[in-house]
């Protein structure tokens, strides 16, 4: 099986991320599925950045602990990553900067001089040399550079060519197919999914790891019927989104834990007022500022219970780009159908990870048609919170003739006027609960819990979010099962039990200390037998998880 792992490292500001992406595209054009993990500290220039690009014949979503090619823009890359080198690792390095390396030197500064190219194009030299070392045909490079380095393509190509010409082919990465796929980040997949789901407005205050979703949608906005707003702070963000939704426009917001804290009061307001809103919540290492550019999965319980009071909420945790797309769209659609807040729970590994995106995997993902028999009556008799069998009241929006649309954060009657009546309070609480029950029925039809690997194995890994990828791969190696809940609220207990049927040993894999998914399952009567937890901000590599799982299974 062809499976290639490339590490490229350098300083922040060296363009490691886009170099990694270019390499991913090279593999993509050879017919591979790709995945890229990008690791960077919270600073702008200097420090150590690296990207691990992996290519495989099969779908992948995790990095390996060893590199087949190691591209070093500096000595740090050599020093920091000795652990990833094997005897046959091909090292390609900037001869001027990575002086402690051995392998294929690239005379980067000489080439840049010759081409009077700026420093940042050093990447293109390294990539050129790598491509040659990997036996990649020149036309592939030309195509990838033309498509993905639109600025100064010619000069970048000249630089790459010089390096290509001086390097030797060491280990040929075979072409495995003509087809190539879109290569996108989790953030981009979520953004596209939101658009698919009908997004009208995206509102966000920047915060890693969802800032790039803001940037992506802001760039796309001129070509789409969407408004993108970056307001004064996260309180403004969520309330502005509710204003959009009240006026009939589908709004989503994005943030991370700290910003989400500031949104919790608005979340509860959305719950009471029954205003739909989608929150993209990218987890990172906490508590508090923590490791702002590293990963974590420690906000599961927080998002399950955030905001005062009880109200239904949809929480989905996609595990790769396709799921990000599908469930972002569904989150938007279901939020609107049930008039509830929906949270897309990501993590840095997923949101900023880069994946091949296979439309064939998307399948069908349409919610059931609108709840039937719940006809909208506008005009003076309109009641925003009209009681219906499903608990969902037909929405109307301001501007509707003769129709007064009142929403409120107070307990209210059917017309949206405040009440303190005990009986109505109960009825309205039950109305909200009913929506949750209906949503759960629908979720149950949508495939909210997925399984992979050997579905008959009595041993299963339980993984959520970005850990789907690494868990699937390890399960493949060990011949065991993977169970991945995508929907975490309302909890798809029936599906979970089905997915677990025959499982004798359940091992949870989570990027947190408390085993949060495990305790969610425990509260539903399902016991996790072993926990494999990681809380240093770094995602599991395949080898690391394999080792940890084997250890607990010993």
């Amino acid at each position, binding site marked *: 099986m062809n499976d290639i792992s490339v590490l490229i490292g350098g300083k922040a500001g060296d363009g490691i991320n886009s170099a990694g992406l270019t390499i991913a595209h090279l593999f993509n054009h050879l017919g591979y599925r790709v995945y890229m993990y990008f690791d960077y500290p919270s600073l702008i220039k200097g420090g150590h950045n690296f990207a691990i690009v992996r290519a495989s014949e099969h779908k992948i979503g995790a990095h390996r602990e060893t590199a087949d090619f190691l591209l070093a823009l500096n000595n740090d890359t050599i020093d920091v990553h000795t652990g990833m080198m094997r005897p046959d690792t091909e090292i390609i390095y900037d001869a001027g900067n990575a002086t402690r390396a051995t392998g294929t030197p690239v005379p980067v500064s000489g080439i840049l001089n010759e081409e009077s190219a700026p420093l940042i194009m050093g990447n293109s030299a390294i990539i050129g040399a790598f491509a040659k070392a990997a036996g990649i045909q020149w036309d592939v490079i030309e195509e990838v550079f033309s498509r993905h380095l639109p600025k100064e393509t010619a000069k970048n190509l000249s630089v790459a060519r010089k390096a290509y010409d001086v390097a030797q082919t060491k280990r040929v990465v075979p072409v495995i197919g003509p087809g190539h796929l879109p290569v996108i980040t989790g953030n981009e997949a979520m953004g596209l999914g939101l658009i698919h789901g009908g997004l009208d407005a995206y509102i966000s205050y920047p915060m890693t790891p969802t800032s790039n979703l803001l940037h992506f949608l802001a760039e796309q906005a001129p070509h789409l019927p969407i408004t993108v707003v970056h307001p*004064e702070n996260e309180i403004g963000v969520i309330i502005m989104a509710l*204003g959009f939704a009240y006026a*009939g426009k589908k709004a989503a917001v994005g943030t991370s834990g700290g910003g989400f804290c500031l949104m919790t009061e608005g979340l509860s307001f959305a719950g009471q007022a029954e205003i739909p809103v989608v929150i993209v919540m990218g987890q990172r290492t906490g508590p508090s500022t923590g490791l702002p550019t590293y990963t974590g999965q420690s906000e599961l319980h927080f998002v399950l219970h955030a905001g005062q009071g009880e109200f239904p909420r949809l929480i989905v945790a996609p595990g790769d780009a396709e799921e990000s797309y599908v469930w972002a769209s569904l989150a938007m659609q279901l939020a609107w159908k049930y008039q509830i807040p929906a949270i897309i729970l990501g993590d840095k590994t997923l949101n900023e990870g880069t994946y091949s995106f296979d439309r064939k995997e998307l399948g069908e993902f349409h919610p059931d048609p609108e709840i039937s028999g719940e006809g909208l009556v506008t005009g003076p008799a309109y009641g925003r919170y009209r009681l219906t069998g499903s608990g969902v009241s037909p929405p109307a929006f301001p501007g509707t003739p003769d129709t007064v649309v009142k929403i409120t954060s107070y307990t209210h009657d059917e017309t949206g006027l405040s009440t303190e009546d005990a009986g109505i309070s109960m009825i309205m609480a039950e109305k909200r609960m009913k929506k949750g029950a209906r949503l759960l029925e629908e979720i149950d039809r949508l495939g909210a819990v997925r399984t992979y690997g050997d579905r008959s194995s009595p041993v299963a890994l339980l993984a959520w979010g970005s850990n789907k990828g690494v868990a699937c791969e390890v399960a493949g190696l060990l011949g065991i099962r993977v169970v991945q809940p995508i929907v975490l609220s309302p909890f798809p207990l029936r599906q979970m039990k089905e997915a677990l049927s025959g499982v004798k040993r359940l091992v949870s894999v989570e990027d947190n200390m408390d085993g949060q998914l495990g305790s969610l399952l425990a509260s539903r009567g399902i016991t996790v037998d072993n926990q494999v937890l990681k809380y240093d901000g770094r995602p599991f590599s395949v080898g690391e998880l394999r080792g940890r799982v084997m250890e607990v299974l010993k």
Partner: protein
Amino acid sequence: MIGRNLITPAKNTWCPGCGNFSLQFALKSVLGELEQSGTSLDDVVLVTGIGCHAKMADYLNLNSIYSIHGRTIPAAIGIKLANPRLKVICCAGDGDCYAEGLDHLIFAAKRNADITVIIHNNRVYGLTTGQYTPTSPLGFRGRSTPGGTTELPINPLELMLASGATFVARGYTRKMEQLRSLVKQGLLHRGFSFIDVLQICATYNNMTDYYHEHVYDLKDHDISGFETAFRKAREWDYNSDARIALGLFYQQVMPTYEDRVFAHPPDNIDSQKRIEEILQEKM
């Protein structure tokens, strides 16, 4: 349908003598007038905070968001960006908008968002039974400061002028004609209108006598001059004894936030097609 009954069946629970009644009346009659002259009340949205003032959302038969404490403004801006045709009014409290949510107010002014913000400035937290607010005078004895506050008030007019508001006025709940006129002008102003209304709180801060002695109407005042407006605004600092000018302090016409945001409306693109294009670009 013209001639909508602007009062809902909700039971009114303001205290007898509360200045909120005047504000309710002013809004009701101005909206009635606007309706007569062609504005559809279907296109009006009221956003309130939380506090006595906020009950306006229950009492006026208008589209409304009875929001949360301090957050009228972001909701209003969201509504306005979602549907610029709507006329959006915020009825906010002084605790609500000058303490809990002051930042939003300044940003609304800075952006010149085309909304009208009316502050029911009773200079006390009414609904939570009488604590000082950012406009209570130094030494105010409220329930959280029984020994008197230890900080000077803000001067909201001054702050709003410094923040770029394009319509800045002060009304008083015992001056109905003027109040109506200010509300009406505010609603007709294109851009951010700010009206600080000295509102009598009959129960916790009845300043009627004081205001009676101190208020006067702005006359021969040049509303187009920032410096004049600013000097007038500083005449009374919400603390010391001074004459209290009422009326429109400042008005200026400037591009609104919505004008700028929608300056380049996107081509009429099919989103699903555009998704495909983006995916193509990423291949």
